[in-house]
């Protein structure tokens, strides 16, 4: 009964999605406004039922309703409440249902934000969104059905994968990731609509920009949250291993960032329309590729779901979406004529071009590295790996070039300028750049790439701060207001959009610094300690004070209580542990991290022997890692501020008449 309610909700959402898609495309092709209204209603219908389906599953998980197949698969009576909610997305079927739910929210909000001002792009976009919704609805109703009826209702379930119960980040990372991934559907639909209508009006472009900002912000947070999760849970002390699934989450972020930037050129100059649309489309296609990589089981990854029939189905959808996109681009992109020209030479336009090129290169490199093992296997029938050493070697120089462009770009003028003017703009930041370099050398950093990165980061930091506060300082000079008043004009006025970009850049520069220093400055040692024994590492003195036992309904843990002293100060003891989950054979370790602004003290247990009362301990000192998390917050804040500013500024003053038709007459 309970399962059939769930199935009905899913089927209804699928029905509305498919009917709505048909109505929307018909509305576009036949230019019928009544069909548009129908499509809009269907969109809301799809959204409503899909959200209800998700809520139904959550209540089933909370109430331990094992008559539903998914609950029987991942539910368990002895689970904390947050784990029960979180198990909605812990396993394959539930995660597709969750995808549907997030898509429902996005489609509802996006449909609401479209108006008559968008012309026939409105039904076109809704058509694309609902077509995607139809696919996912079909997946949920078919191969990935979570609402199966259990013939023999079990008394209890095994609970979700233990690694997913280890940390609160499990509750946060997937929703953010889905918020990013799924959200790319909206700008994708709008981009296809631009191609279908043959017009990229300023209204439409503005809507695309806005609809790109929300998923971009989510994805920025999600990518790094994933790294943070790996750092806190997996125990090897790093946050990014270039695992195929990690790469999958990064690829659409790279093209989306490119799209956000080239959209600025499109908005200002009316150029690169086709290119911006391509970047938007690529971002969506890469999310589908990413979800295929995660669920197909053909990639060697920590994160892979097991292989299932879903893989090929997603691939078919990817193929179809790619074909439609390539055809639309090939046949319709010439209709998106530029309205102006790029400024030549050493101008900000060129910097934008270079930035886009570098992001595409980055994407291409990561993609090649990720799929290369498949190519080799298909041709030479030999398994090989492309791992961290390769990716680091290739992406570090690209990252440095990006940082260079991020520094030089905003310093360059929009228009043409003299070389004297260029010198005035480009030379001063060298001061802070050199300062960073000197500081780095002074602290003992010797790795060449880290030094280069810090020099470039200093440059970019100067430019970013300078540009961020320039309007305020200009106002100060002109009007003699207080600084706060001058600055708040930016925060609460139309200057917010510009400011948000520099906030995001500030976050990015911080991230570069954190990554450069933490990846080369880590120090570690392995030692076996007996109870009561002490060791020193760096400025820390560590003592194995005792081994504790903790029984929980779903797991037994052995905890090594390590007393920590820094210099002479006694700090909170750290408790790395080995967890034995009821459903797993091998125990899984959880590290203990003392997060600091300068460095993290990272303890991981290799093994805990209760007979001999010894603990094999891995001790690491990781510098500046917490600044990566801080940087991400800043970047995400930048994205959200931009989103907020465009929502506030964005409504079209008057509905655009069909001027093209008027002109044609």
């Amino acid at each position, binding site marked *: 009964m309970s399962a059939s309610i769930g199935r009905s909700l899913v089927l209804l959402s699928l029905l509305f999605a498919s009917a709505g898609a048909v109505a929307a495309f018909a509305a576009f092709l036949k230019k019928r406004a009544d069909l548009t209204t129908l499509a809009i209603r269907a969109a809301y219908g799809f959204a409503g039922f899909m959200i209800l389906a998700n809520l139904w599953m959550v209540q089933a998980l909370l109430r331990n309703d094992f008559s539903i197949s998914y609950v029987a698969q991942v539910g368990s009576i002895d689970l904390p409440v947050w784990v029960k909610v979180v198990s909605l997305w812990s396993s394959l079927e539930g995660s597709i249902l969750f995808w549907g739910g997030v898509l429902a929210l996005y489609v509802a909000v996006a449909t609401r934000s479209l108006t008559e001002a968008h012309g026939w792009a409105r039904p076109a976009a809704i058509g694309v969104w609902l077509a995607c919704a139809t696919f996912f609805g079909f997946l949920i109703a078919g191969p990935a059905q979570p609402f199966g009826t259990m013939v023999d209702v079990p008394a209890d379930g095994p609970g979700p994968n233990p690694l997913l119960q280890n940390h609160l980040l499990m509750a946060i990372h997937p929703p953010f990731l889905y918020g990013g991934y799924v959200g790319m559907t909206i700008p994708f639909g709008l981009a296809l609509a631009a191609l279908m209508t043959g017009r990229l009006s300023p209204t439409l472009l503005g809507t695309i920009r806005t609809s790109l900002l929300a998923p971009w912000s989510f994805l920025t947070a999600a990518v790094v949250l994933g790294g943070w999760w790996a750092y806190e849970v997996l125990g090897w*002390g790093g946050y990014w291993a270039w695992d195929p699934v990690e790469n999958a989450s990064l690829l659409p972020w790279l093209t989306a960032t490119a799209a956000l930037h080239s959209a600025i050129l499109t908005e200002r100059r*009316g150029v690169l329309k086709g290119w911006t649309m391509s970047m938007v489309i690529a971002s969506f296609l890469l999310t589908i590729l990413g979800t295929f990589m995660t669920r197909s089981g053909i990639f060697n990854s920590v994160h892979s779901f097991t292989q299932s029939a879903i893989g090929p189905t997603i691939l078919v959808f990817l193929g179809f979406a790619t074909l439609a996109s390539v055809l639309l681009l090939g046949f319709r992109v010439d209709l998106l004529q530029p309205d*102006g020209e790029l400024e030549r030479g050493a101008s900000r336009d060129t910097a934008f*071009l270079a930035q886009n090129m570098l992001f595409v290169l980055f994407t291409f490199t990561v993609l090649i590295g990720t799929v290369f093992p498949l190519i080799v296997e298909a041709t030479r029938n030999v398994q090989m790996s492309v791992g961290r050493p390769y990716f680091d070697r290739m992406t570090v120089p690209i990252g440095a070039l990006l940082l260079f462009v991020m520094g030089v770009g905003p310093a360059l003028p*929009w228009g043409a300028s003299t070389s004297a003017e260029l010198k005035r703009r480009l030379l001063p930041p060298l001061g802070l750049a050199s300062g960073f370099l000197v500081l780095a050398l002074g602290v003992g950093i010797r790795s060449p790439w880290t030094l280069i990165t810090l020099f470039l980061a200093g440059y970019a930091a100067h430019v970013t701060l300078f540009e961020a506060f320039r309007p305020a300082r200009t106002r100060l000079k002109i009007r003699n207001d207080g600084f706060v008043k001058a600055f708040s004009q930016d925060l609460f006025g139309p200057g917010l959009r510009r400011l948000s970009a520099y906030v995001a850049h500030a976050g990015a520069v911080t991230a570069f610094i954190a990554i450069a220093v933490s990846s080369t400055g880590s120090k570690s040692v392995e030692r076996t300690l007996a109870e009561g024994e002490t060791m020193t590492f760096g400025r820390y003195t560590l003592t194995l004070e005792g081994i504790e036992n903790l029984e929980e309904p779903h797991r037994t843990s052995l905890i090594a209580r390590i007393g920590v002293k820094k210099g002479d100060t006694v700090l909170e003891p750290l408790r790395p542990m080995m967890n034995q989950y009821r459903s797993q054979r091998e125990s899984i370790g959880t590290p203990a991290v003392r997060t600091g602004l300068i460095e993290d003290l990272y303890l991981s247990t290799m093994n805990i022997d209760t007979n001999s009362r010894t603990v094999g301990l891995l001790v690491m000192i990781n510098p500046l890692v917490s600044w990566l998390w801080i940087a991400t917050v800043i970047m995400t804040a930048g994205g959200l501020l931009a989103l907020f500013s465009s929502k506030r500024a964005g409504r079209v003053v008057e509905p655009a008449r069909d001027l093209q038709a008027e002109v044609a007459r």
Partner: protein
Amino acid sequence: MKPEVCLTRFRSPLIALVALSAMAGPGVLAQEKPRLDPEVIAILGEPDPPQNALDADVIAVLGRPEGTVPSDENGVNLRATAIGSKLRCPVCQGVAISDSPAGMAVKMRGQVRDLVAQGYSEEQVMLYFERSYGEFVRLEPPMRGLNVMLWLLPLAALAGGAFLVLKKSREPLKARPGSGTAATAHDDDDDDGIVVPKAPELDTALARYLERVRRDSGTST
């Protein structure tokens, strides 16, 4: 004693020793120390202490160490960690053995340390593991055959991209009839963040039309 003199004086016992080792082969290492002529021992000294069992297999695969023996334990650790970051833990998912807490990874790290301590070079250590686990175990693919594409393709993309960007940024400015309708107000670099909406909100087709009108009527600015 000078080496040349040493060789000529003790040529026959040396030849005997070499012949003995060559004939005995692995069998020698399998049993106890080779029985050497007391005269040889008297001249050349006791042979090296019995090497551990690893060496039989290692020597069969790698031969003699080609690198240098590290001077102290710190040197061993540094080199071993560097090599460990390039070897894939076969039982984990994609991590290097230096990053994995798994039992086999710990053992492989011990193996790497042993080999490094005996003076084997990085490439030799990698080859030893490749013998057992295949190319899969190398995290950074060696530059042979098809793998060259891993480097060529991104480099080609970089070159192509750079060329495109430079081309677009160097194209001679076409005669700009009044800079079109886009962004006249924005060409100044004092971008104080106020995006003046094009007044009125012009659609692109209208913009082009307006452009033509301006050109035709000669009122371009």
